[in-house]
């Protein structure tokens, strides 16, 4: 009489068999499992991204008194508060690129290409990608921990009990904040790297006046660089937000699962950003 009422065993979920199957005996099984896991992950992330976009569209401007401050807070967290770290890394990147390029270009008399190299290396590739990885490390991981803990503590159910859409309240501000923050940080990062690059070139006695350096950079830039930079960096931020929110929020979590979810989210966000970057390289090469 005092025993709890018996309940039926929880049924296997649609995709759970892939994650809980015993160790593979053969390499085709192992390969097959990896392919299935990859497929289910992409499907889950895609569905979550579409749901988020749907909520952003249908609830645009709704509950501004609650969502507005959260969005501003996320922009500050993914932007202004990270600026000191980014300026330091940008200065190091400028030294790294210029130091290496000057050492080699001066041997072949190609110092006049310094600005072009900076545009190709820093503006198009390293700037956005390093910014994205640093934002992932500083903000993306925090997203998974915060949302995963909230999920494990039942705060998502509490939001639903109050008639508040968890995606609208928890995900949308992060997507907007990270997209805007990553774009803004990349711009500052690139400017700082270009500036520090010239300082290091000056310290190495490269015969290049500031106006020549700026002219080289301006000559190497096209409208496509500005358009794709904005698009790429905002997409990096949105991808980081989607992947990290998905792992923190979309599935039931226990407290002990949060660290695993964080590690998984970082790995998948890095891969997603890498794939997006490759796509943009194709766009550059096609348009060039």
């Amino acid at each position: 009489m005092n025993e709890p009422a018996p309940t039926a065993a929880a049924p296997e979920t649609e995709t759970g068999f892939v994650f809980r199957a015993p160790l593979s005996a053969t390499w085709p099984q192992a390969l097959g499992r990896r392919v299935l896991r990859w497929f289910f992950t992409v499907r889950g992330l895609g569905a979550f991204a579409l749901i988020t976009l749907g909520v952003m569209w249908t609830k645009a401007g709704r509950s501004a008194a609650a969502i507005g401050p959260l969005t501003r807070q996320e922009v500050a967290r993914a932007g202004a508060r990270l600026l000191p770290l980014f300026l330091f890394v940008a200065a190091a990147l400028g030294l790294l690129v210029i130091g290496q390029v000057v050492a080699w270009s001066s041997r072949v008399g190609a110092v006049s290409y310094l600005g072009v190299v900076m545009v190709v290396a820093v503006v198009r590739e390293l700037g956005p990608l390093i910014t994205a990885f640093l934002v992932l490390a500083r903000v993306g991981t925090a997203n998974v921990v915060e949302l995963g803990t909230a999920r494990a503590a039942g705060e998502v159910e509490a939001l639903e009990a109050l008639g508040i859409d968890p995606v609208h309240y928890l995900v949308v501000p992060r997507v907007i904040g990270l997209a805007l923050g990553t774009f803004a940080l990349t711009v500052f990062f690139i400017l700082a790297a270009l500036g520090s690059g010239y300082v290091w070139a000056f310290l190495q006695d490269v015969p290049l006046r500031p106006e020549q350096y700026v002219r080289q950079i301006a000559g190497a830039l096209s409208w496509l660089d500005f358009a794709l930079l904005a698009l790429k960096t905002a997409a990096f931020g949105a991808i980081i937000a989607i992947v990290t929110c998905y792992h923190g929020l979309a599935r039931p979590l226990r407290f002990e699962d949060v660290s695993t979810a964080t590690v998984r989210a970082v790995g998948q966000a890095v891969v997603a950003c890498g794939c997006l970057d490759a796509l943009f390289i194709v766009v550059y090469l096609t348009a060039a």
Partner: protein
Amino acid sequence: MKATEPDNRPVITMRGVTVGSLAAPGAVVAQAVNWTVAAGEFWAVAGLHGAGKSDFLLLTAGLMAPLAGEYEFLGEPMPIFAEERLPHRLKLGLVFEDARLFNTLTVAENVALPLRYHRGPADVAARVADLLAALELTPFADTHPGQLGRNWQRRAALARALALGPEVLCLDNPLAGLDPRQRRWWLEWLVSLADGHGLNGGRPLTLVVSADGLRAWRGVARRFALLEGRQFTVLGDWAGVEQSGHALVRELRGTREPEFDPRGGI
């Protein structure tokens, strides 16, 4: 005994409902539930730990869909997720046993959140101040929930649930883990809400509480039910509880809980 008689308008109607589990989708905690709650009634649903009371309340509060059967809240099928029917859904509030306050927000921000989200910034401060004062939470307004004890966290959750002025309030085991003085406070408060508290516009609030025992709710709740072995049994009023030959009902109505006169302290 009752300050305000129920008007018999059904607010909750369940027909043949099968209740699942939030933690274990597909598991069944109650089946063939036929239950009607009239406006202004005060129900206590008792059961042992693990009987599924929390899941039953989550379904009643509209957070889970029935696995089978029909559940209507004020004539509308539940659960409600559609945006256009949200105002209807907000007539039902829920207080979790573990409060589930948002740990990154202060107590005042927690209480203000549903108001800010659903009604905008106008008059939020005044309403929050009223709620905090009524529930003696004003000294903790700027405190984060993690720094508060269970009783105060649960009071803050009650304030948050009352913020939007619901017509029906579900409370999951509100007396769990409280000392006798705190339990008395809660019982008095729930009776005053059921009778029509000023915070809720003086309207009698329909209440559904889950409980580990029945004794504490004698003279407080007006209707009783038992959840045991996946069966939901309506016991009726306290006379029905006393007349029940069910062994668990006898056990849950035991004599260890102190008797409480709900009108004595109000």
